[in-house]
């Protein structure tokens, strides 16, 4: 009997090891999202004001109480005609791309069909057979650069500059990733879940602010919708020079006292898929700038 008890105790212990207990987590209520930018009409409703980036209301853009309703699209081209650091990054990106693509191997590696780069940005993140996972454009730029012996770390200036150049070739093209099936659907669902997962010292999720408190003030800042944000990255910001979407996630983490992850990590890529799907149908608009 004693031996039987010992065996049972050991088996139970090993079972506990094989399947570690799921730790306690908290989630914001999981709202329904549409994988299209117009889904914002059911969330903040501000989409009506920034639907057409070429026809933004000048009066709203100049009114600090109302400009958040434009989702900061007045800092994107064609509305924003100013010359800023993003334009210099674009030049750098073009130069680097032409160096790397001298034998057209770089474009092929990035996945451009018949050398056509116009639709590249709009179709990322995508499943990569060679990487065997869903990857964002910046991760693939790093990977394809490394194949030619070039260091282009995900999030670095040169990596983002190439990404920005490729995005600029697709200016006006609507973002179009299909999250209805396959690995992208799985990534979208994981990203949606992460968007609502509470983390960090303040126990915030992304949605604590960007779903449940849109339009409210955090002192000088007004919280905006998560829809439509992926169309202007990488973005020029004076404090961060040129910022990729993954580095923006890291900055959000730091701002909410959460230990950030590395650019290119799977959770950030899943969030990128989620954010990009929420931008489906909105035209790429680069080079854009944002506050400080």
């Amino acid at each position, binding site marked *: 009997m004693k031996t039987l*008890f*010992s*065996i049972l*105790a*050991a088996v*139970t*212990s*090993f079972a*506990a*090891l094989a399947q*570690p207990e799921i*730790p*306690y*987590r*908290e989630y*914001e209520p999981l709202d329904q999202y549409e994988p299209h930018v117009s889904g914002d009409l059911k969330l903040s409703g501000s989409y009506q004001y920034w639907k057409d980036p070429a026809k933004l209301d000048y009066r709203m853009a100049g009114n600090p109480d109302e400009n958040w309703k434009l989702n900061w699209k007045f800092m994107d081209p064609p509305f924003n005609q100013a010359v800023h650091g993003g334009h210099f990054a674009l030049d*750098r990106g073009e130069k680097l791309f032409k160096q790397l693509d001298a034998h057209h191997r770089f474009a092929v590696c990035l996945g451009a069909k018949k050398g056509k780069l116009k639709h590249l940005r709009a179709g990322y993140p995508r499943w990569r057979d060679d990487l065997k996972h869903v990857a964002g454009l910046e991760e693939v730029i790093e990977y394809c*650069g490394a194949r030619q012996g*070039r*260091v282009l*770390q995900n*999030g*670095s*200036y*040169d990596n*983002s500059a190439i990404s920005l150049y490729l995005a600029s070739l697709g200016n006006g093209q609507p973002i179009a990733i299909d999250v209805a099936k396959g690995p992208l659907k799985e990534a979208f669902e994981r990203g949606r879940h*992460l968007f609502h*997962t*509470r*983390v*960090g*010292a*303040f*126990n915030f999720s992304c949605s604590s*602010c960007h779903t449940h*408190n849109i339009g*409210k*003030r*955090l*002192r*000088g800042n007004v*919280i905006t919708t998560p829809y439509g944000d992926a169309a202007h990255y990488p973005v020029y910001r004076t404090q961060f*020079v040129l*910022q990729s979407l993954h*580095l923006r996630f*890291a900055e959000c*983490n*730091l701002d909410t*006292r*959460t*230990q*950030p*992850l*590395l*650019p290119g*990590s*799977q*959770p*950030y890529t899943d*969030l990128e898929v989620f954010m990009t799907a929420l931008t489906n149908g909105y035209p790429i608009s680069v080079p854009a700038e944002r506050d400080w």
Partner: protein
Amino acid sequence: MRFTLVGLILLLATPAWGVDLPPDASVSGGKTMAAKVIVNSGRLEWTPYKRDLGRWLTLSYQDRRATPEPTPFELKAPTNGDAARGKALAWQWCITCHTLPGDEWPGTVGSPMAKYKQFKHPDALVFQQIFDARIFNPNTVMPAYGTFGLLAEQDIRDLVAYLQNLE
């Protein structure tokens, strides 16, 4: 009995992989690192961040740590708070979301704190709201300052004294 001992030892060993930071966290030597973008460079520069954030849960799938659960706190009277110190703390911690008297850039995510005295809430309730508001509302976005160790008990007592005297 030997099996029980082996099982027990392995069970005791399990927290070892739950305590470590996940491998995809941007840390070096246990310190939180922030990425710096260097113009015309293919490399990021990593610099130590002003705060170490490793003790709290991350977004990593490999993070097996648990979120601290909602915790009640039984406040023993008297509150003994220093309202002046509470004001300084409120302008440091609360002002981002809550409107405080004298603030020209009010936060509107939380409820306004002006004339808070009029509500005549018991001190214990106000203390609990700051210590861990999840006790009253599991979906609150207000950080649990006590449970997460952001504020000490006396800090919260000072905040209660400040808020309860706002006329």
